[in-house]
């Protein structure tokens, strides 16, 4: 139990007659990179919102970082990081001010913020830009910075909602290097993406279709099972049967 970061059992979210998430069951190991795939409208976002402590499930069980999604939302929030597809730093704050703000919101002490942000700026090679407004940075840098900020408070799990949207392939590659580093320091990475090459980078992936998890395994095993060489094909074969589409 201790080395499971996320456990879901028959997790369901229903809006009226509509089952956005329909009895999904899976678990994620601590330090694992878990890809959460699915076409638009498959229920990814709804499931993720429950796991992030933003909404309550209708039925089923789930724990995140060892905390119950019904009763311990506040504790979940303290132990996770989050980065969304929309860019999530403040353009008219400097890099350091952004770090300071998010550190402050997560209750990191001032001394700690100072030490860690100096480290972070050094690692990213942004010493010269540290006092510049984030709005002046290129998108790729912003995205990397946003990820660093999302794990600044050393969460157990970080949720990434389509983190590399609109970024060039080289930056995406660098971004994934950062994800591997985070996973190496035992942070669980829960990532949604539409890029199938990115899905290959994950330890394991799950593919959601119409609110259900239709397949879950390592990319290699999935390709074998569907008798194909590309994740694209796997995804296509599964998603083709979907009745729901769009957002």
């Amino acid at each position, binding site marked *: 139990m201790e080395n499971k970061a996320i456990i879901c059992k028959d997790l369901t979210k229903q809006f009226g007659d509509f089952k956005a998430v329909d009895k999904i069951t899976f678990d994620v190991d601590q330090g694992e990179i878990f890809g959460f795939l699915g076409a638009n409208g498959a229920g990814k976002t709804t499931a993720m919102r429950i796991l992030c402590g933003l909404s309550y499930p209708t039925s089923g069980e789930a724990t995140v970082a060892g905390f119950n999604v019904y009763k311990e939302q506040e504790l979940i929030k303290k132990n996770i990081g989050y980065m969304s597809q929309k860019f999530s730093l403040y353009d008219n*704050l400097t890099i350091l001010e952004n770090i300071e703000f998010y550190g402050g919101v997560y209750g990191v002490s001032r001394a700690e913020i100072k030490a860690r942000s100096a480290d972070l700026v050094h690692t990213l090679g942004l010493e010269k830009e540290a006092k510049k407004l984030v709005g002046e940075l290129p998108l790729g840098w912003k995205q990397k910075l946003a990820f660093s900020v999302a794990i600044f408070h050393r969460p157990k799990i970080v949720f990434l909602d389509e983190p590399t949207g609109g970024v060039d392939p080289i930056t995406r590659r660098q971004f994934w290097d950062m994800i591997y580093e985070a996973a190496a320091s035992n942070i669980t990475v829960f990532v949604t993406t539409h890029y199938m090459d990115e899905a290959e980078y994950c330890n394991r992936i799950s593919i959601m279709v119409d609110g259900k998890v239709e397949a879950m395994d390592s990319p290699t095993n999935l390709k074998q099972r569907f008798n194909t060489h590309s994740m694209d094909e796997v995804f296509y074969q599964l998603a083709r049967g979907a009745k729901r589409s769009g957002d």
Partner: protein
Amino acid sequence: MKQLFAFIRKEFYHVFRDRRTLLILFGFPIVQILLFGFALSSEVKNIGVAIQDNAHDVNSSEIINRIQKSSYFKVKEEIVSYSDVERRFKDGSIRCAIIFPVNFGQDLYRKEGSRIQILADASDPNTATIAVNYLTAIIRAYQQDLNPNRTLSYQIVPQLRQLYNEEQNGSLNFIPGVIALIFMIVSTALTSVAVVREKELGTMEILLVSPFKPILVLIAKAIPYLVLSLINFIIILLLAVFLLNVEIRGSLVLIFAESILFIITCLSLGLLISNVTDSQQTAMLISMMGMMLPTLLLTGFMFPLENMPSIFQVISHIVPSRYYYAIIKAVMLKGLGFGYVWKETLILAGMAVVLLSIALKRFKIRL
């Protein structure tokens, strides 16, 4: 607490780095005060007047002299023909004209008395009435001076006093209204935009996922604007006192306390607006249209409420600025104490509580 401070500091960065916000925050009030104080004055001064003096005698010259000396009128050169008068009315250089008949002076000592014609441009009825009244007063005063001993025994002389504003300073009436208007716009619009901006940027999502309590998000948004609105208020008061010669008669403490109450009402309204909209433009539009127009029209500072159709009078009861306007007018201009404004204060406080609780509740639901 530390989290809250981190948040509030961030809000101040936003305000001070955004030129647009700064402009609305501090430029707007100053422009408003100057506009209402000077340009949109309801007093009538320097009314253009043309004089056609066909009499050219002592009496007519004396009256012309008096008109010239009055600050209400600006005498344009004398005009000979009647068509000239009409032309000047049309091109707008004069608002009224006086025509003395040929034997004006002589007729004065006859039984029938003498006549004088006053023409006024009534396309603006208020100005026309005021101009005619002023002219009549000047002529009457002259007549009085002419034969001081022959006052009729049964003449009634009304003794007029315009209370609370004896020098007829037009800014007096405007100041409380403009203050209400500025709070309404600055506090309501800027707060709603500040919250909606986070939604637009996607940072609201991050905030909701963080352990930071949603209610604290609202408080952290509101506090900077409360502080800034108060600074604004001080600037407006200073402008009013030193530039427009408004005398503050009531207690400053009471004025400040009431203003804080009204600002809180406005902030709550702003938070409420931010809850029901997702774009900055919509938020701005609702705040401007929904708040500015009722404040302009339904508080009684531009148009008297008593003259409005009863439906508008009823609606005016839900406009918070109406009560604030009444309070500030009573305290600032009449020097009244809390005992006279407690009812309005209570209503305002009630509105603040209701608006704030709806805002907080809706914010939670939208989580």
